[in-house]
């Protein structure tokens, strides 16, 4: 089990949880300032109503819905990827599952915030709850917006529990350490409370593993359903370049694509900031890089298929949107998206040098920008081509929308910084289990999961 050198690696996971780390505090403050910007911008909108945004005829869905789709896509980083890797028993998943699952929970919560912001009168949110309103009306379950509401809540519930369940043994480890090293502190009390009295008996492990296994299987279709349903918000309308049967899988592929990209960036920052090279080693980046190449090809295929069908059909309303996107007003954004999402990844990631941590993180960042542009083009691009005469003007986001947009990234960072100080970002017990299998191959077919530095 944990040898001295492995113990040193573990200390790097535990270090952010002990005392105040200047880097984490600084990060929390900077991102906290962006959260303040979000709150101020949203408060300004609530006070002055939705007219302070650039939304107007014909573009009624703008930045908020773009960000909603973007963040829901980002949320596919964790639970889905973690669940797939768990179900397929990929040993290299162990150091990345917690990091990925935390991304899912925070991104999903932020994504779910945007429809509320977009509502304008956010206090009317309860109309979406299964409660009769003042006229005795119940929510309309035939509406894709209600499907969204139900699916996102199911995914959020599942993701939170999927994050917390495997956290129990780690919290017990931290509790036992804290009770010896720093008894009576607030952190010790926190670990003790969250550990729920976990003891690590065989029956507890058996039930936990069964539970995680079942949840991993259940969460995969839920994750896929969430982004499919998000796509149906668009596809159920008759708007040009939205009303498409390919939108479900296209959105799911895009979500997984951006999810892996954000995971790359987050892992690189964690590796550099917390010196977790022993866990988030080159092999992890290499494997995720290969996965990203596959997703790049899939995304490119779907994008090509989507645009080819529309171009070939040459229907007046569709081709007008197509031309604006590819050759017209949105061409610069469209071709930037193609470069960022297809050309750069395919120019870098197929090569071994391109799958080193810094390169994969840089490509991940490009993909994130590209995927945001894709969502912007889908949301704003289609609506910007009017089909009726009475248009007010082109959509231009205001400072309120930019503030909320920037603030959402701040909120994500802030939540992540707080999480880093409350829970181990690498699952201690899962990594130990991998090392145990490497030391004692009691069951055949379990490859080594020693940190790379140990192997060398």
């Amino acid at each position, binding site marked *: *089990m*944990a040898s001295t050198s492995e113990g040193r690696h573990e200390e790097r996971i535990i270090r952010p949880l002990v005392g105040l780390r200047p880097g984490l505090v600084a990060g929390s403050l900077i991102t906290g300032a962006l959260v303040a910007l979000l709150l101020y911008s949203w408060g300004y909108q609530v006070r002055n109503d939705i007219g302070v945004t650039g939304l107007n005829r014909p573009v009624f869905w703008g930045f908020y819905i773009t960000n909603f789709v973007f963040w829901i896509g980002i949320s596919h980083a964790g639970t889905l990827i973690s669940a797939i890797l768990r179900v397929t028993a990929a040993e290299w998943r162990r150091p990345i599952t917690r990091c990925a699952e935390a991304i899912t929970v925070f991104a999903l919560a932020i994504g779910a915030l945007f429809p509320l912001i977009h509502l304008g009168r956010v206090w009317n949110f309860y109309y979406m709850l*299964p409660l*009769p309103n003042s006229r*005795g009306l*119940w*929510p*309309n*379950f*035939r509406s894709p917006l*209600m*499907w969204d509401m*139900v*699916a996102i809540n*199911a995914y959020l*519930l*599942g993701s939170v529990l999927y994050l917390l369940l495997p956290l*129990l*043994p780690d919290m*017990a*480890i931290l*509790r*036992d*350490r804290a*009770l*010896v090293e720093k008894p009576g502190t607030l952190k010790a009390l926190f670990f003790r409370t969250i*550990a*729920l*009295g*976990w*003891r*690590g*008996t*065989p*029956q*507890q*492990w*058996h*039930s*936990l*593993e*069964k*539970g995680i296994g*079942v*949840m991993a299987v*259940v*969460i995969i*279709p*839920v994750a896929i*359903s969430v982004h499919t*349903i998000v796509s149906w918000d668009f596809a159920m309308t008759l708007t040009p370049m939205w009303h498409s049967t390919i939108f479900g899988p296209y959105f799911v592929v895009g979500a997984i694509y951006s999810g892996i990209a954000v995971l790359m960036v987050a892992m690189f920052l964690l590796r550099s900031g917390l010196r977790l090279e022993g866990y988030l080693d080159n092999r992890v980046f290499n494997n995720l890089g290969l996965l990203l190449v596959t997703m790049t090809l899939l995304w490119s295929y779907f994008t090509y298929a989507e645009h080819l069908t529309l171009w070939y059909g040459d229907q007046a309303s569709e081709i007008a949107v197509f031309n604006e996107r590819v050759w017209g007003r949105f061409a610069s954004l469209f071709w930037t998206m193609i470069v960022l999402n297809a050309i750069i990844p395919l120019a870098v990631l197929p090569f071994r040098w391109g799958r080193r941590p810094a390169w994969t993180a840089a490509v991940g960042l490009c993909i994130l920008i590209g995927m945001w542009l894709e969502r912007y083009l889908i949301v704003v691009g289609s609506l910007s081509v009017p089909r009726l005469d009475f248009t007010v003007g082109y959509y231009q986001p205001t400072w309120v929308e930019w503030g909320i947009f920037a603030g959402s990234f701040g909120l994500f960072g802030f939540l992540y910084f707080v999480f880093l100080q409350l829970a181990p970002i690498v699952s*201690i*017990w899962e990594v*130990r*289990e991998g090392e*145990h299998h490497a*030391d*004692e191959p*009691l*069951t055949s077919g379990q490859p080594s999961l020693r940190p790379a530095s140990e192997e060398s």
Partner: protein
Amino acid sequence: MANVTHAVFASGRQVREALGLLAQGGVGPEDIEVRSSIPLDEESLGPAGQRLRSRVPLMAVLGGAIGGLAAYLLVALTSRAYPLVTGGMPIVPLMSTAIIVFEGAAMGCILLTVATVLFECRLPRLTWRPGPFDAELAAGKIVVAVRGKPSPDWTTGALATSSPGAGVPSPGEGGERTPNGRD
């Protein structure tokens, strides 16, 4: 004080050997409790490992069925409670209702899975108190507790042992049940 001896081991292999010696000495699995910071496989646990049972998969299926039924009833009953004019279209259409039923089934499955895990693990354990060798457990060692007075051979490979009864919370004192390997 309960007559319990604790021993700390560094690896699953040593635990397997210790459990083998205990079995040879006539100590039953119900008198042995193994605690670890990682899941040990059945081979390491010997007879105690074969006794492990879980109803999580069954309860997950049951939760899915309950969740799906509840979602259907929610859609069907609320839609009929105030039937909107749908121009001849069904008030509870199969296609869109299936989406809500699916999500409801998933939620039911997840909730009952987690509830079953907590129930089987006897969590939350509000009366939890620190036990012997918790720090060693946190450091990755494996702690074996044996009730009774077995031959001391079984602790041969141990890093540390406790005297029988010394410092060990008896059942009821620290919320601990008898060390029977099943918690």
